[in-house]
C-alpha cells in the first residue's frame, strides 16, 4: 500500500515537472569588479529616490488644492501638478543612475513606500503655498548635499562621477528652481500689498499663460 502511494507521488511529480514552464534561467557569472559603489553612498542614494517622490506628492496636494472650484487658481494648480511630475522624473533619474552603475539588482521591492500621503493639503493663499514650495526645495537641496557628502568623504572610495552628476545636474536644478520660486513670491507679495484678491487673480492668469 505504501509503495503504491510512493509510486503515485512519483508519477505525479514527473507529470508536474513535464508541464512546468521554464520561467527562470540559470545563474549568471558576470564579473562584479566594475560595480564599485560603496555604502553608505548607495544607501543614501536609494533613500533620496523616496525623498523625491515625497516631494512629488506634496506638490500633488498643492495642485489638488488650487484646482478646487472654491479656490479657482488654475494657473497655480497647473504649475504644482507640473512640479509633481518633475519630482517623479528626478526619482527616475536617480534610479537610472544606480542601474547604470550596476546597482539595484536586489531589494528593489522595498525601494518605495507604497503610498506617500502628503501631510499638508490646504494653504491660506498662493503666497503661502509658494513659501511652502521654497522650503520644500531648500530641504531637498540639503538632502542632496548630504548624499554628495556621503559619496565624497569616504575613505574607501571617492565617487567622483556620482558627485559630479549630483552637483552638475541636481544641485544646478535645485538652485535655479529655488531662485525662480523666490522671485515668484516676491512678485506676488508686492502685487498683493494693496490689492490682495486682484493681485493673486492676475498672478494666476499670468501663470496660466506661462505654459
Amino acid at each position: 500500500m505504501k509503495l503504491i502511494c510512493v509510486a503515485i507521488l512519483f508519477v505525479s511529480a514527473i507529470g508536474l515537472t513535464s508541464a512546468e514552464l521554464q520561467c527562470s534561467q540559470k545563474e549568471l557569472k558576470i564579473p562584479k569588479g566594475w560595480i564599485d559603489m560603496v555604502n553608505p553612498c548607495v544607501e543614501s542614494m536609494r533613500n533620496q529616490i523616496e525623498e523625491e517622490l515625497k516631494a512629488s506628492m506634496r506638490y500633488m496636494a498643492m495642485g489638488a488644492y488650487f484646482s478646487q472650484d472654491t479656490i479657482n487658481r488654475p494657473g497655480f494648480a497647473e504649475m504644482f501638478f507640473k512640479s509633481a511630475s518633475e519630482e517623479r522624473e528626478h526619482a527616475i533619474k536617480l534610479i537610472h543612475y544606480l542601474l547604470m552603475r550596476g546597482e539595484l539588482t536586489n531589494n528593489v521591492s522595498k525601494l518605495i513606500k507604497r503610498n506617500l500621503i502628503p501631510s499638508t493639503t490646504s494653504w491660506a493663499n498662493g503666497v503661502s503655498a509658494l513659501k511652502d514650495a521654497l522650503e520644500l526645495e531648500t530641504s531637498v537641496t540639503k538632502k542632496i548635499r548630504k548624499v554628495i557628502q556621503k559619496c565624497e568623504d569616504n575613505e574607501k572610495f571617492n565617487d567622483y562621477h556620482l558627485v559630479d552628476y549630483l552637483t552638475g545636474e541636481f544641485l544646478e536644478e535645485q538652485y535655479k528652481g529655488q531662485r525662480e520660486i523666490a522671485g515668484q513670491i516676491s512678485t506676488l507679495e508686492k502685487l498683493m500689498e494693496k490689492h490682495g484678491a486682484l493681485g493673486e487673480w492676475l498672478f494666476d492668469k499670468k501663470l496660466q499663460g506661462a505654459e
Partner: protein
Amino acid sequence: MKAIICISVLFFATLALAAEDYCYKDVVEACKTTTKKSVTALNCTAKYGAIDNLQSKLQRYVNHHFIRSFEYLLMATHFANYEKNREGFEKLFRGFSDNKWHEAIELIKYITKRGGEMNFNELSEGIRDEDKEEQDFELLELSSVAKALDIEKKLALEAFQIHEDASRKMNGFHDPEVSSHIEHEFVHKQRDIVRKLAGYTTDLSELLNGPDASLSLYLFDEYLQKQ
C-alpha cells in the same frame, strides 16, 4: 384631497426652485448687507448631481492609481538592472507607470471639476490588505505580465463599481456625467490593456514551454521594445 395634492405640488415646486436659486439668493443677500460675506459662504459651488456620494470612491481610485504607478516603476526598475537586461519589459512597465501617474492627475482635476476635493488618505480595504503581505516586484518575465494582468483587471472592475454607483437610480447616486466620464476615460482603455496582457501570457506560456526559453525571452523582449 385635491387641495392637499395642490399644496404639496406647490411645496415641492418651491423647494426645487429654491435649490436652483441658492447662489443667486446668497449673492443678493451678500450685496445688500454691509457686512462682507466671504465667497466660500455663498452657495455657489460647482456641485450638482451625486458628486458628494461618489467622491470618496473617486478619491480612492486616484490613490490606487498612484500606488500602482509606483509598483509598476519598481517592476520596470527590476527589468532594467544589468542582470535582467530586458529593455522591452522595462519599457512595458515604465509605460504603465507613466500612464497610471497621469491618469491619477487627470482624475484629481476631474473631481475638482465637479466641485469636489481630493483626499489622499482614501484607500479601499482590499488595497490596505495587500500591505499585510510581503510585496515582491522583482519578478520573472511571465510572472510580471501575470501580475500586471491581475492589477489591470482589479482597476477595471473598480471602474465598473464607480459606474454602478453612478448609474443606480437611487436618490443621491444617479449621475450620468460621472458614469459617462468613467466609460470614456477608463473602461475602454482598460479593455485594451487587459486583452493585450492576456495575449502576452498566451504567447509567453507557449514560448516558455518550448526547447529554448532563453532565446524566446530574448526575442519577446526585442518585440516589446518595438511596441
